[in-house]
């Protein structure tokens, strides 16, 4: 098992290396003239040249890349053009806020969607299955900005139950719901669709398997068959989907944080993009990719620990 995980870890690092190259190419090479891209068309040639020199983008590519990557790994991510603060401090601050929002959404929606997915599978082809499947399909279809605006109108504007603009909550659990419920609803809708669908598929597959037939033909009670024999195997693929979708969640955060004015990393990405704050943009995007890789790795580890077939493989 450790060898399997070691291999995964090495692969993850190779992938991260590719990630950094892609990011570097996109952010530093694609614009052609970085200084012009940041300052816009109205800056003078002298200003652009000065900025280019300040950023070091007038140096050779390879050198720029190694400086940038080395800096990133040492935690020296440069300074924000606009906020004039170290990028690392801003990014981690915002990341922490986003983790609270994302974690809240996941905590609520993962058990719910697995539950409904399994419920649908156990009632395969009957009305609960139809309702859950169609609901899941429709919820996937609604972009976060649409659902976000809807809940904003209904609960913040019309009913006035919850604030239209969310802050980072205090430790009070009531405050968690008050601040985070609205911005997390758009995220949860999309997650529900994917996770419940995977849980349903996995469970149906398991229900049709030979080992479940064996369990039934052993005369085991239905509860035992489902809890011991079906779910143990059917939820394994769901783990992978959850990790992938958690990565996706970060994309959703861009929209929902903007909409609810929540100071998270998604909003930071968008703001820095719109304002051409390149150091911030570059670092946060890389941070998001690292986070995603870490999540996939975590899912792999979990999957391995729960699956004896992989766990015990020589």
């Amino acid at each position, binding site marked *: 098992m450790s060898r399997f995980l070691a291999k995964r870890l090495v692969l993850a690092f190779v992938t991260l290396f590719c990630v950094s190259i892609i990011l570097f190419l996109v952010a530093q090479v694609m614009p052609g003239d970085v200084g012009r891209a940041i300052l816009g068309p109205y800056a003078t040639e002298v200003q652009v040249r000065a900025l280019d020199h300040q950023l070091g983008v007038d140096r050779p590519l390879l050198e720029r890349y190694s400086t940038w990557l080395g800096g990133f790994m040492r935690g020296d991510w440069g300074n924000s053009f606009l906020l004039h603060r170290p990028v690392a401090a801003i990014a981690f601050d915002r990341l922490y806020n986003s983790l609270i929002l994302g974690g809240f959404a996941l905590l609520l929606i993962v058990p719910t969607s697995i539950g409904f997915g399994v419920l649908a599978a156990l009632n395969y082809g009957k009305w609960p299955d139809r309702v859950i499947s169609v609901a899941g399909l429709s919820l996937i279809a609604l972009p976060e900005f649409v659902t976000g605006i809807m809940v904003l109108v209904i609960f913040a504007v019309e009913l006035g139950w919850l604030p239209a603009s969310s802050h980072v909550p205090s430790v009070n659990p009531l405050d968690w719901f008050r601040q985070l419920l609205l911005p997390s609803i758009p995220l949860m809708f999309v997650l529900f669709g994917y996770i419940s669908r995977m849980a349903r598929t996995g469970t149906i597959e398991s229900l049709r398997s*030979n*080992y479940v037939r*064996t369990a039934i*033909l052993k*005369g*085991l009670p239905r509860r*035992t068959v489902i809890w011991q024999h079906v779910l143990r*195997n059917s939820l394994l693929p769901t783990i992978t989907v959850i990790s992938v979708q958690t990565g996706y969640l970060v994309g959703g955060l861009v929209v929902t944080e903007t909409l609810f004015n929540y100071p998270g990393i998604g909003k930071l990405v968008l703001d820095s993009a719109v304002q051409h704050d390149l150091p911030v943009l570059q670092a946060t995007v890389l941070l998001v990719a690292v986070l995603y890789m870490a999540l996939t790795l975590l899912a792999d580890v979990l999957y391995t620990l729960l699956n004896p077939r992989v766990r015990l493989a020589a």
Partner: protein
Amino acid sequence: MSTPQPLASLPQSGALAIEHLTISYLRRDRALPVLTDVSFHIEPGEAYGLVGESGCGKTTVAMAVMCYLPANARIEAGRIRLQEVDLTTAGEAQLRSLRGNRMAMVYQDAGSALNPSLTIGRQIAEVYRFHGGLDAAAATDAAAAMLETVQIADPARMLRRYPHELSGGQQQRVMFAMALATNPDLLVLDEPTTGLDTTVEAEVLDLVARLRSKFSASILFISHNLGIVARMCERVGVLYAGRLIEEGPSREIFSDPRHPYTLGLTRCVPNRIMRKDANRLDPIPGSLPPLGLAVQGCVYAPRCPIARARCREEDPPAFISGPRRVSRCFYHDEVPSIPQSAEALPSSPANGASEGDLLRVERLSKRYGAGANQVVALDDVSIELEAGEVLGLVGESGSGKSTLAKCVVGLLDASGGEIDFAGRKLARLADWREPQLRRKLQMVFQNPDTTLNPSHTARRILTRAARLLSAGGSAVDRERRVTSLAAAVQLRPHHLDLKPSFLSGGLKQRVAIARAFAGSPALVLCDEPTSALDVSVQATILNLLVDLQTKQRVAYLFISHDLGVVRYLADRIAVMYLGQIIEIGPAQEVFSPPHHPYTEALLSAMPAIDESQGPRIKLSGTMPNPANPPSGCRFHTRCPRFLGDICRERNPPWQEDREGHRYRCHIAPADLGPAQREATSSPAGDNNRPRAETSP
């Protein structure tokens, strides 16, 4: 002629009684009958066999008995009684108390039948906890005891293992342990050994035989293999297209069939004395009627050699055709006198010696991976093959048969050694070989479902082959070539315009054979070409291969796990074990002593319907891990004639028995021959040294 007598009037007591069972599957809006008026019963402690080809409804019977039919199945009529309980009306709660308790089931592919994420111990203990009311500790103890009963070594350790850590044979033993845990009244076995290797199959069947003396369960034994059923069961029923067409004691039903279909089944398998140059196989003409086809009269009439007008009009009732025997044939009296329909072959393929070798494989090796995980799939393999000769290649899974074929044909890149073909040295991969050599060396594959491209019609497949293999020619030439190829493999013209999904398994294999023959090959490698086919279809394919060989003087390297088929077809035979050739020689020599102890074991494991079973040579343990083959003689860990340290330490030499027959063993022919001849005449068990089960 005897008077018709309905089956139901036979004594219908017993552990299990099925009465007039009719089952349909609903497909879209139609009900397609799969079982029609099936009645039989099983006495307490009796083993009843149910045989038939695929699609005849065997498994539906098993699932109906366990009350586990698919959701779209409907019991139209009839009853299934397990002693006093009518299973067709039993409720869920009642079924739960019956299943796994009073009736249990073991089926094909134990690997998928066990839960991959629970330990063996837990899965067996469950049965004791729910049906025996034992607590966790007591249930685990009982599970360990049961593992001992099914002859699994070191039960305490085995309890903590997961299914994937067990060999196929061990997995099936665990299934038996689970099924017999509650000492059930009825044990349903649905192809319990299909997919296992011959020697493992023999072990499992031995186990079943032994367990029968310990447990009192009646057995419903379902199999496509007549030999196994003949050996395991007291009585047998033959299913055809959902109807029980004949029933009787197993000895009599196969030696003296009273239904033309049963007769056809026994005749299409090659028996011990049949050889391709003397006897043709006798296939059953036509094919199984499709599911749900409404048939007037006897369902077998379209394929029956003695069918008359009456057979096409009236459905034959069950006739008493002998003591304890029933046949659904109006003319069951005439069945014994039905002549062999197939004529003997006029010419025998001459062993035109002195032509020189067509194929010479020297010291071929194939290794996968590196370091500690290196697997040696082929180790120092040398064979030679003359023009027009058939070399049979036998051995169990993992022995390297297919690897050898793929290296020869150039689909795999050999790691060492040389291949000479038609006097030329062959490049390792097909892509690098000259076109004229490539077209002389073709292959027929095992799986009819994947051997043809599903999106191309048969005509397109053959036209492409003709274009690439028969060098040039105009479009008209190619068309003519395709027509003649199709005729050679007895394909009808309308088959040519169909895509593979509309062709039956046998027809698909014919297209595949035609494709291989498009360039008039000198050598065709056949990798288990009939193993996925039913026996009646297998017979036609084997006949076809023999015809092509005689007419075109092509040589075959014929791989099969079925020794009966190899004996029928091969001029010479090579036996492989763990990547090595351990015996090679003329077919008759290999099949008679002295021969390698492994060959001896393989032969004794063959189930047959036409002779009384001799004593069995039992192999202990499982195939060792090819990444870590045993030292000395590779077979020593399982050898029934194990000598001692010499086998463990020293590589065995080739022993030359007679001209062209040699085997790899420390025992010389002069000693081995007499010992093996004696073994076949002495009672069972003498030469069997019990040995602990070793796991890979």
